[in-house]
Each structure stands twice: as C-alpha cells, then as structure tokens.
C-alpha cells in the first residue's frame, strides 16, 4: 500500500494522531446531578456546582466512572486501579470554576489498541495512549447580540472521555476509519451516543509530515472537528500546507489551528509561545479514584459483544470475508439487523453472503436515497429474510427481487404479497420457456442466420427478447440453457 503523497519535489508521509472527545452517555453530569439532556433551553440544567457558586464541591458520578472503565475494556486497554482528578486552570467565560477538572498524570485508562479493516482484506492496529475523564465547558453564544456574549452552562460539567491515540495514523482515510471504529465501539458499549452533529463525539487532530523514514516533523493541532468529512478535509488541507512550506525551504511552527468548514482551510489560533500554562495540580476537593479488581471484573462481565468479536464470529460462522464482516459490524444497528434477518429463517444461514449483499448494497442504497436510517427501516429484517428466501429457492430472480424490495420499501407489503399480487414468480417450467424461445426464434429469422454465421454476441439479444415476453420472470439459467440448445440444433 502506498500512503505517500506527492509534493513538488518528493514524496511525503503524513503522521497523524487523534484526541477524541466522547461525551459519556449518562443522565447526569460528571460531578453534579444536573441533567445532560441535549437541546434544553439555555441554563435550565445548571446546578450550584455547575455554576461554581462559592463553597460548592464536586462529587464524582460513579456511573460515569463505570462507563469509562467499560470503554477502556472495549479499547483493549489497561484499567488503572488508581487514578487522580487534576485541575486544569484557565480563564474563559464558559468555564465557571476557572478550571476544568480533568485527569493529567494518572488517567483512569492506560494503553490499548483498536483495529481498522481495509477493503483489500488487510487490517491495522492503532495504539491508544490513554483515556481519561474530564468535564466539558459551557457554551459562549456570540451571535445573539451585537455587543454582548451570552453564556449557556447546560453543557458545563458534562462528562467527557478523552481518548488519545499514538501517531499511528498515516492517511486521512485511516483517520476516518479510526474514528468510525471508536464510534462503533462506544455505541456497542452504549457509553456514548456517537452523535457527531450534536457534538457528542469530536476530535482534535495532530498532524505532521515527513519524508519516508525520517524522524517525526513538527506537528500542528487542529481543534474541535465534529465530522469525519471535516477531519479528512482538514488533514488534507493541513498536510498540503505543511508540505508547501517545507518544500519552499520554510519550517513548521507548532501551532494550534482552527478549521473553517466553509472554506475548507485551517488557520492558526495560537502558537507555542501563546500556549496556556494550565498549572495542573491534583484537585484537593476530590479523593483519588480507586477501583478494585472486583469492580473492574464486574464491569467487564457486563460488556456486550464488541464489533471485533462479532466480526470474527461472523467470519467463522458464515464464512464471510473480513471486509464484509467489518462492514456488517461497523454499526451495532447493522449487525443487529443482520442477526435478526439470519435468525428469521433457519435456511438463511446458508445464504449469509446474499443476506450481507442485500443489506449493505440494496437496502442501504434505498435508505440513503430516502434519507432514512436502518433503525426505522420500512423493511423489517423478517421481511428481508422472506425476500431472500424467495431468491434462494428460485421463486423469483435477483432482478425481480430488486423491484420487489423497492415495492416493499414504499408500500410496506411483504415480498410474498407483492410477488403473488403481481404474479412475479419465476417461470421455471421448461415447456413454457421453450415455447417462448420458439416464438423468439421464429420471429427473428435474420438474427438467427447471423448468429449461426458466428455472431455469438447475438445470444444476448435472444435472451432479452425472451425475458421481455416473460416480463423478466423466466429463470435466467434455464432460459440460457434452452436457448443455446435450440439454436445449436438449428446448426
């Protein structure tokens, strides 16, 4: 695989690491009992603690801790029995305490790894450095009034997991696959809702470029990207920018960058000299977090099947390819749908590959076209299973089945209903097919002559004519066989 990008002068390699901020799925905040519901009216979910009133103290939300441990297990990572909450000090209007409670030296989760799968069947491990818990800040609203900034503290104190990767990523696609994989794991675990639009999952991207084999170059950090598309765009733009500077003899300044989603460009937010000194120190209001082996064990045992386990199970049970299985397990709803379909009829497990294709290509494209989600697909797994059963038993052809699926999608009817109503059963009666072929041969004597003179391509013409007469219902294989037989007899 060649991951290099061409510069004016030579080839370059990107070195990318991601810091993913995932909002912990929890009804209440990390250190207060306020609700975390998204989209509530401003400052309606703010406790005295969230607003940093004098004398207010944080109390750890145990559920958020369990969620972080769960996530750590899902990332194949080391869970630390001892971790410490630190204060990260800086001033901002939407940071009421004047510090963010985070974990610095002793995070709750240590080294781990996730695997990403490529189309060509290969895969790659991305190492995780750590996962730590921290508070989210509030929101500054600059666009409500020309001369004022308003502050909404609903988000203030909401629990985040920061998942930091090693700089193991080499292309924008890998970055996209990595964040998709993390998102998938979080959603399987139900520790984050994965909603990137609502900001439940966002990432900071660290990127540098180097000539292959060289040491790491100076990196820049692009802050707060909330879609995979933007992540890829930002990486591409930033890599190009850095390469241009380096190739024209310049050097990279270690900057923190912002990505403008409308121009597709990055611009510096602050440089190294302007970087904050966060004056981290252990939060004296909180005791170190200690989790016993027993507690970790209990959480581990509560963990559902994760995408990679499921993927391997699918490969083994249904003899699917690595890539098919990874597509199927990328989202929990997809693997759930697949499972439900397969289990709807005992025969279907022998046609798993067909089931995968019908879900990931036919059904997905219909859903996409109609802007719908698999979770509320008008075609239920049972009904899709029924349709596939009709194909596998040769009752209808694949081509007809596509039509039937579209009908199912819009009308909500079952495949059986549609096939019966429209009389779409495949014609498998040899005599009937032979009759139609005879008709075609009789009606097209000139074509037959040309075919017999060696114009083999005309076979398709006869097939088409015969299909037309049977309204596409003739069993294609039988049609082909009989047609060849009859034409060759003429010879």
């Amino acid at each position, binding site marked *: 695989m060649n991951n290099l990008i061409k510069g004016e002068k030579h080839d370059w390699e990107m070195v990318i690491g991601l810091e993913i901020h995932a909002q912990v799925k929890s009804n209440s905040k990390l250190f207060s009992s306020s609700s975390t519901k998204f989209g509530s009216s401003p400052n309606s979910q703010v406790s005295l603690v969230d607003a940093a009133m004098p*004398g207010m103290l944080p109390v750890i939300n145990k559920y958020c801790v369990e969620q972080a441990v769960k996530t750590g297990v899902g990332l194949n990572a080391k869970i630390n029995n001892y971790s410490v909450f630190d204060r990260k000090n800086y001033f901002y209007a939407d940071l009421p305490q004047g510090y963010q409670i985070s974990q610095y030296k002793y995070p709750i989760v240590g080294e781990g790894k996730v695997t990403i799968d490529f189309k060509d069947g290969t895969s790659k491990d991305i190492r995780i450095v750590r996962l730590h818990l921290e508070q989210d800040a509030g929101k500054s609203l600059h666009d409500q009034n020309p001369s004022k900034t308003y502050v909404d503290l609903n988000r203030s104190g909401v629990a985040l997991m920061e998942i930091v990767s090693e700089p193991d990523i080499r292309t924008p696609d890998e970055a996209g696959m990595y964040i998709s994989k993390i998102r998938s794991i979080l959603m399987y675990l139900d520790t984050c809702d994965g909603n990137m639009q609502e900001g439940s999952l966002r990432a900071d991207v660290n990127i540098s470029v180097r000539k292959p084999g060289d040491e790491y170059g100076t990196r820049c950090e692009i802050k707060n990207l909330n879609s995979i598309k933007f992540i890829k765009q930002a990486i591409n733009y930033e890599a190009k920018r850095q390469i241009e500077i380096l190739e024209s003899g310049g050097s990279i300044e270690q900057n923190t960058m912002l990505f403008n989603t409308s121009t597709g460009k990055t611009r510096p937010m602050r440089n190294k000299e302007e970087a904050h000194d966060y004056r981290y120190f252990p939060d004296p209001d909180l*005791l170190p977090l200690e989790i016993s082996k027993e507690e970790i064990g209990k959480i581990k045992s509560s963990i559902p099947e994760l995408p990679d386990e499921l993927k391997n199970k699918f490969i083994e049970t249904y003899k699917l390819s690595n890539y098919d299985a990874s597509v199927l397990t990328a989202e929990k709803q997809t693997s759930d749908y697949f499972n439900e379909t397969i289990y709807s009829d005992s025969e279907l497990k022998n046609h798993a590959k067909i089931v995968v294709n019908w879900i990931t290509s036919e059904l997905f494209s219909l859903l996409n076209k109609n802007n719908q989600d698999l979770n509320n697909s008008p075609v239920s797994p049972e009904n899709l299973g029924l349709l596939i059963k009709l194909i596998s038993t040769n009752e209808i052809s694949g081509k007809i089945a596509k039509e039937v699926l579209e009908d199912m999608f819009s009308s909500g009817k079952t495949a059986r209903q549609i096939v019966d109503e429209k009389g779409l059963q495949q014609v498998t009666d040899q005599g009937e097919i032979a009759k139609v072929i005879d008709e075609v041969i009789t009606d097209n004597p000139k074509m037959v002559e040309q075919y017999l003179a060696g114009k083999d391509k005309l076979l398709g013409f006869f097939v088409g004519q015969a299909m037309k007469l049977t309204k596409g219902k003739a069993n294609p294989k039988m049609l082909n066989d009989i047609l060849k037989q009859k034409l060759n007899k003429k010879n």
Partner: protein
Amino acid sequence: MSKSSLKQTLKDLETKKISIRELNQVYLKRIKEKDNLNVFIHFSEENVLKQMDNLEKDNSAKKLKGIPIAIKDLFCTKSMPTTAASKILENFNPTYESFVTQKLLDEGSIFVGKTNLDEFAMGSATNTSFFGNTINPLSKENEPLAPGGSSGGSAAAVAADLCLGATGTDTGGSIRQPASFCGVVGIKPTYGLCSRWGIAAFASSLDQAGIFSHNVEDASILLQSIAGFDQRDSTSAKVDIPNYFENLDDDLNGKTVGIPKEYSIDGTPMEISQIWEDAIKVLEKKGVKIKNISLPHSKYALPTYYIIAPAEASSNLARYDGVKYGFRSDEIDSLDEMYENTRAQGFGREVKRRILIGTYVLSAGYYDAYYLKAQKVRKLIADDFNKAFKECDFIVTPTAPSAAFPLNEKQNDPIKMYLNDVFTVPASLAGLPGISIPFGKDKNNLPLGIQILGKHFDEQQVFNAAVSLERSYE
C-alpha cells in the same frame, strides 16, 4: 466567669428562668453597644427578631433552641448576605445554606450576624477585610489591638459576649490564633469532621470549620452540632460523632502528653514559654506522664503551608471572574479586560499576593521545585505526628508566638504576619484536631493561649485535656 455560658443558658431556658426573647434582647442590646468593634459585616436586628418570632411558634424540642450564635462570613447563608470580607462578593446573597450553618439552624439556634474576617480568610489580624478592621474587645481605649485572624470577628464576638458561640474556619490557625488573642476557646477539629459544603474555599485540603466559645464545655456541645458526614463533600469523613459533652472527663491520670522540642523557638517571649511550662506542671500534677517528643520537620511547616495554601487558593479563587455573580468592573472592553479589572479592583492586596504566589508555584518549570516538594514535606510532617502519637495521647504547645498585637503592627510585613501561624500550621498540614484555650496572661494582662493537639478524630481526648487544664486554671 461573669459571662453566662451556653451550658448554663440552656438550663435557664429549660427551666424558664429566661425566655428566648429575653435572652436575645440582652445580646441584641450588647451588639448595638459594641458597634465600634466592627465585629459584624452583616447585622440586622430585624432578621434576629424574625428568627425569634419563628422559634416562638415552634413547639418542637431543639438542642440549641434560641441560642444566639455568630457566623463567620465565609459560610454561605440563605437569610444573610455572604461576602468572605471581599469586595468581589460585596452583594452576594446565596440561595443555599452551608452544611454547618444548616446544622445549627436545625438545632434551633439564632444567627445574630455574619462576622468579620480577613478577606477570604487570608490573614492573621482581621485587617485584610474589605469592611475594615475588627478591634479586639480586650483593647485599651487608646491602643486598639488586633483580634487575630482570620476568624477575628467570631473570636471578638465571643470575647465581647455578643453571642454564646461562633463558627470559624481554620486553614493554618485561623480559629486557634484569634481564640488565643481574644481569650476565648477555639477548636479546629480533624480535617473532614465538618463538611466544607457551602464554605467559600480558601485552601481546600486545609480548610476546616470549627467553633469559638466561652469555655471548653460549650465548645464540646457546639462542635457536636456541626460535625457529621456529608455526601456533598468528598473529603468529609464517615465517622461516628460521640457526645463530646457527655463524655467529658477531666481525669487525665495515666495519660501521656507529648512536648515537642521543636516548638521552643528562639525569640519566643518569656511569658509564652512560661505558660507552656505552667501547663506542663499542671498536667504533671494530674498524673499525666510528660514525654519529650520530636517533630523534626516542623521547621519546614510554615514555608510548606505558604506554598500549598496559596496554590490551592489561586485556583479556588479563579471562579470570582465577574461573569456569573459578585462584583464586575465597569471598565470592560474585552473579556481579558473584564477579568483583569474585575479581579484587580475586587480583590485586596493580601488576596492578590497569595494568588500570585500560588500561580507562581504551580507554573510549568516551578511545580516540581515548589508544589510537589511541599506535598512531600507535608507528608513528612504528618508522619512526624503519627510517630509521635504512638508515644503520647495528646500534645501541648503554645498557640501563638505572641499576645494580641496592636492593630497596625505588621501590616506591611507579610512575612512577620505569616510567622503568627508557626505553632498552628503543622497540625493543619497533618489534618489534626487542635484547640486553643486561654491559659495565663502576659505583662500587659493580655490573654495567652495553650494549644492541645490530638490524634485524627480524637476530639474527645483534646476536649478532655482542655477541660482539665481549664478547670485547674480557674
């Protein structure tokens, strides 16, 4: 003693010798007479009368029903503003009641007012308050004395008999030192005994609420009322609170007192060394074994404290930014300017000094040399005590290196001011309980204090030793 004690007053109320109204009228009158001492930041007669009215309608039995108590203005209270003696909280009215004051309200006590303190409890003379100095009630007319600090208003309120008890907070000596200066009893319990919930924070790992009272018995009654576990404070301890008062036992026969040699500091006035010796002699007479102990890291306590406390303060006080509540400067052209001007105008000199020190010691490149090292030394100091307490039941030392000093002395010499905490700070760093009781006078007839330190959560032993010394002195 001419002042009525809490214990006696509770009896008088019970036997209807006096009514809640009569009792509080006496205190109200005195508070108004002693207005010149500047003990209270907030005092409202109307508010006191209202509390009396409500209590009269309340038929339930309550342990402190009708008892006038003064509250240090660092405790957030719903019925009265809370300023922390700072301009930055000048007009702040909490919508919530601190754990400690809520406990006192639940017991039926009456809050006579909010007492003056050093701004955010940073000081040793109650002279850094935005609301002016408090004057030590023991001052001669032409020479006003400092009441000590930071809880100087509460100590003075008890000393001037404006209440039957007062709350304080102690971070490095803020209860014990003013108790010593004002000739009253002041106890700082074990760190974690009383919830910090609702107390404006100075240094979270050191701040602890406590009590001022006329005598040890009263302190034992009041401390029991404010102690207890609180799930809203993660550092609050889950321990059973004994009935300190019922368990008071002045028989110390067979106990061992530790006398730390490191507390004999050059330049300590003779009178202080004298009362310390006197106290030891009294204990010896009572059958207490005298044990010379060593707390070798004590000499590092003061610098350690003046790194850790400001570090925590610099972060704790970041929330006073003019955004959400409290004072905001008018001169604002940008967010940064809002912070700068609000905090420059809203905080006083001492608070700013400590924020600067704290910010410095936490800064990249200095953290290891200062903060981290200070934490290590703090551990050594605590270990010293743990070791010493294997050999003794309690420790006796002087409370402060001097009697009350004139109001304006040391004003411009922060180091001299910080030295006031030299005997109180080690126990604060170790989280140990300590009490100061009046024990003797200096040549100017000003009271001097003896400090008794105990093991973690062994307040009972501290009270027992204190009551024993107190009774022998009377």
